[in-house]
């Protein structure tokens, strides 16, 4: 029956298997083993991470729903709430980039509308290997088209996100998808299976053999044969999901149902067991009634299938016909496949026989939890030592090289493949630090951002975690928004390796500290372990999705200069910090050094100040200093101004000139103000004990940066713009 080989094939340890036998009081059959293997996989159970995730602050006065549901929910006033989450689809996107990314979009959208919210916006955080290889280029092209193909068709705007490139992602790209929806506070739905006798309906696409073992695939390292796992990747149908979205929202609006859960990773298994476990009820389902796309499917295959665009609904007993009518209006199947009972069990029948009879609590809540061994990585000491670097001979050339490095270059090539305007809410601010979405019929808007620099985290995970939160919030502050909630996607290597576990623990500590200081709750997220291929782990990559609220949309500020003769003011302080910078990586080809340090309290005060002067109407533009340093920050504000206005600044700092131009010291924001307002800003800064320095002004058609009166950089805006704008299209041009 169940032997060692079968257990291993299901990614379970022998100890775990013994625990299953103990919990259910007998040997499981193969279908039951399949169910446990999915629900006890790292992907579904969080067994290696949960101990550490408990450090994250999850409470706050506006939190309606924290971690543990399909998505987190935050109250934004006016009777409205936002529902949001981020999730990874890394493994499938390596194996089949288009479908992997597309189904990542589909999956996260279902998490949002499952809760009764209409999804209104998407963002993606993408990590690829260097574009010097055709394989990496084809992965990037596939992923971007997959996101575009799904999101555009279903009609939800993909408004932004970030893209980084590093060798460590060559065999293991990251695709993290963030979605947000909006719902009336009183009309939120949960994954409940209550009310004995209530019917269980299967709605949406038919079940096929696709995606079997997707969740277990995402919970193991890849070897050389990973491309053979292609059949494990699901295939997306955005049209089907669009119909499903409309039909589900319609049955919810008509109050016909008790609970609803999407069938994402782990499909029918996850939706049935989680709904029953949450409500302490039983579910009896008959697999003969499940709509099937293929012939001869076994119970094992049906329970483990990850066919997309399916949902499970528990309807009110006397409203089933109305539910069916709505689904039929949208040309969708809605089939009663079982009912709610008592006793906390999942009972599945097939061909007249009971094929599964398990306690749901054991499946959902009693998975073993591991506090895995951790140890400081051996690479760390030498990686932190950055040997003395020569100063550039020609700062202009160095600047062009940096602007055209794919991580810093303009990403319009990506962005214009996404429909970022559908739903007519996207406030016009090209290249903004945080895209802004208006909320119709209110004065409010949402600002959104995704952030995570994995080179920082690789060299100092705790600091990297702090900076990921801080920078995300800084982006929001530049747009004029206050952070209200966080979702995170934690992408790491194999947690069974102590060095990876150390990175994970440290990163979480950094994120937790920063969230406490910024007073923002983490409402959920996703952990993606086993991002290792052929024994090589990715850099630890936390991606923070922070949602910001703008109370008055007229205050929204963009990064581009508005006019000539604006005064440039630097908030914060320049320091000589070169470690882990894009400059050292690109120009000196070293991924080494100590990343910039951060004082979270100081950071918060600077952000508060930025928000204060924005809402006082004193600010024309605001842009945060991040990768590429002050020089790239200033240049971007010029590129993003409607007339590509130039600038001239003189920096009065004693330090290495390359560090001054390209160092990535944190807690810095460059704002511009009208001439008549700049003294007010400087005075106010003094009152608030914020360092603010007038460093120059906008105007002309050159980017000129001096240090103590000595010329460092002097280039025509047009040339710099060309380097920045054409870098990525050039790489993908058909030659």
């Amino acid at each position, binding site marked *: 029956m169940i032997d060692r080989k079968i257990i291993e094939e299901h990614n379970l340890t022998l100890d775990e298997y013994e625990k299953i036998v103990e919990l259910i009081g007998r040997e499981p059959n193969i279908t039951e083993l399949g169910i446990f293997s999915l629900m006890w996989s790292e992907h579904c159970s969080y067994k290696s991470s949960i101990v550490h995730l408990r450090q994250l602050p999850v409470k706050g006065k506006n939190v309606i729903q924290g971690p543990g549901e399909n998505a987190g929910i935050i109250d934004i006033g006016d009777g409205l709430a936002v529902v949001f989450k981020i999730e990874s689809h890394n493994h499938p996107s390596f194996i089949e980039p288009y479908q992997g990314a597309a189904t990542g979009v589909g999956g996260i959208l279902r998490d949002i509308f499952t809760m009764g919210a209409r999804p209104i916006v998407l963002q993606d955080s993408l990590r690829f290997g260097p574009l010097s290889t055709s394989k990496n280029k084809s992965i990037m092209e596939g992923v971007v*088209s997959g996101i*575009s*193909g799904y999101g*555009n*068709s*279903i*009609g939800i705007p993909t408004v932004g996100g970030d893209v980084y490139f590093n060798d460590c992602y060559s065999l293991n790209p990251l695709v993290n998808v963030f979605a947000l929806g909006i719902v009336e506070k009183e009309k939120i739905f949960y994954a409940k299976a209550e009310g004995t006798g209530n019917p269980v309906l299967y709605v949406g696409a038919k079940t096929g053999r696709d995606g079997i073992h997707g969740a277990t695939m995402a919970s193991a390292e890849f070897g050389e044969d990973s491309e053979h796992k292609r059949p494990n990747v699901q295939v997306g*149908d*955005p*049209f*089907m999901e*669009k*119909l499903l979205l409309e039909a589900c929202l319609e049955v919810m609006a008509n109050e016909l149902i008790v609970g609803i859960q999407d069938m994402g990773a782990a499909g029918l298994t996850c939706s049935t067991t989680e709904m029953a476990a949450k409500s302490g009820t039983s579910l009896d389902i008959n697999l003969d009634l499940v709509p099937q796309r293929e012939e001869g499917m076994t119970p094992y295959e049906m329970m483990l299938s990850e066919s997309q665009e399916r949902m499970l609904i528990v309807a009110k007993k006397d409203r089933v016909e109305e539910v069916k009518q709505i689904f039929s209006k*949208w*040309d969708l199947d809605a089939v009663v496949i079982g009912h709610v009972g008592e006793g906390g069990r999942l009972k599945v029948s097939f061909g007249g026989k009971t094929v599964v009879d398990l306690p749901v609590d054991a499946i959902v809540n009693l998975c073993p939890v591991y506090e895995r061994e951790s140890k400081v990585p051996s690479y760390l000491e030498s990686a932190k030592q950055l040997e003395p670097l020569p100063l550039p001979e020609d700062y202009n050339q160095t600047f062009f090289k940096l602007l055209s490095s794919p991580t810093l270059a303009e990403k319009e090539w990506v*962005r*214009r*493949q*996404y*429909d*970022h*305007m*559908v*739903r*007519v809410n*996207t*406030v*016009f601010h090209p290249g903004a630090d945080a895209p802004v979405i*208006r909320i*119709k*019929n209110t004065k409010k808007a949402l600002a959104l951002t995704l952030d995570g620099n994995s080179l920082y985290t690789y060299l100092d995970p705790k600091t990297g975690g702090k900076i990921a939160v801080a920078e995300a919030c800084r982006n929001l502050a530049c747009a004029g928004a206050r952070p209200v909630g966080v979702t995170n996607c934690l992408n790491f290597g194999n947690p069974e390796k102590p060095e990876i576990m150390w990175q994970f623990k440290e990163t979480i500590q950094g994120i937790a500290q920063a969230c406490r200081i910024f007073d923002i709750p983490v409402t959920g997220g996703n952990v993606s372990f086993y991002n290792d291929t052929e024994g090589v782990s990715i850099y630890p990559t936390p991606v923070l999705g922070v949602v910001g609220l703008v109370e008055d*949309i007229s205050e929204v500020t963009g990064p581009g200069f508005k006019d000539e003769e604006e005064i440039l003011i630097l908030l914060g302080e320049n320091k000589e910090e070169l470690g882990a910078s894009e400059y050292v990586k690109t120009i000196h080809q070293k991924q080494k050094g100590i990343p910039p340090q951060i004082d979270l309290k100081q950071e918060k005060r600077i952000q508060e100040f930025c928000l204060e002067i924005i809402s006082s109407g004193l600010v024309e533009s605001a842009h945060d200093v991040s990768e590429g340093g002050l020089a790239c920050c200033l240049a971007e504000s010029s590129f993003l101004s409607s007339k590509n206005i130039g600038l001239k600044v003189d920096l009065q700092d004693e330090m290495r000139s390359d560090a001054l131009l390209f160092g990535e010291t944190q807690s810095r924001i460059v704002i511009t103000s009208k001439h008549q307002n700049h003294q007010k800003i400087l005075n106010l800064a003094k009152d608030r004990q914020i360092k603010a320095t007038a460093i120059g002004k906008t105007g002309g058609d050159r980017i000129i940066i001096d240090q103590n009166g000595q010329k460092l950089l002097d280039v025509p805006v047009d040339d710099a713009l060309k380097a920045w704008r054409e870098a990525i299209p050039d790489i993908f041009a058909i030659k």
Partner: protein
Amino acid sequence: MKFGVVIFPGSNCDYDTLYVLKDVLKQKTLFLWHKEHDLKNVDCVILPGGFSYGDYLRSGSIAAFSPLMQEVKEFALKGGLVLGICNGFQVLLELGLLPGAMLRNKNLKFLCQFVHLRVENEATPFTNKAKKSQVLRIPIAHYDGNFFSPPDKIHEIKKNNQVVFRYSDAKGQLSEDANVNGSLESIAGLRNKEGNVMGMMPHPERASEVLLGSEDGRIIFDSIIHWLGNRGG
């Protein structure tokens, strides 16, 4: 005066179009459902953007066979105003109410960006508030917007003054660069011979509020309102 916005399965600019007409322009507007045969006495039918029936098979092809479209065809043949935006334009081509076909964009990628349109024909119900050669800034968002037509047909289209918009630069100059999707003769919008049916790839509903980056799209809706008003509709 009453507008009807058609919903096909897969339409996704239906609510946007309704929002602009109803909330921004304060016009009486209702949805029309693809399975019905009732146009509900509207004065202008708008086929919105989206991916009707997933755009499987060919963009707009399946929607052309929906029950409601048989009514729309009759309505158009009797002189009723019909505007197709993006996917709606593709449906009108498939239905044969407008000439030509759409190929994939010349760079073989989906394109979502602001473009400039030069008004070629201001004497239509859809452009009477614009001036000849006026340049409008309106976004596009499509995969299949590369207009094509055989030489004899294009000759006829031009002879009948059916080209309403061409892709241009900000100054109204035509160029290969400005013609982002590769359309034949830079064609971005077309009317039928009679002038009561127009299709355009750009989305005027996405350019009807300053907050979203442009108000130029309102000219199209304002023109329809003006024309219907004068007709006493």
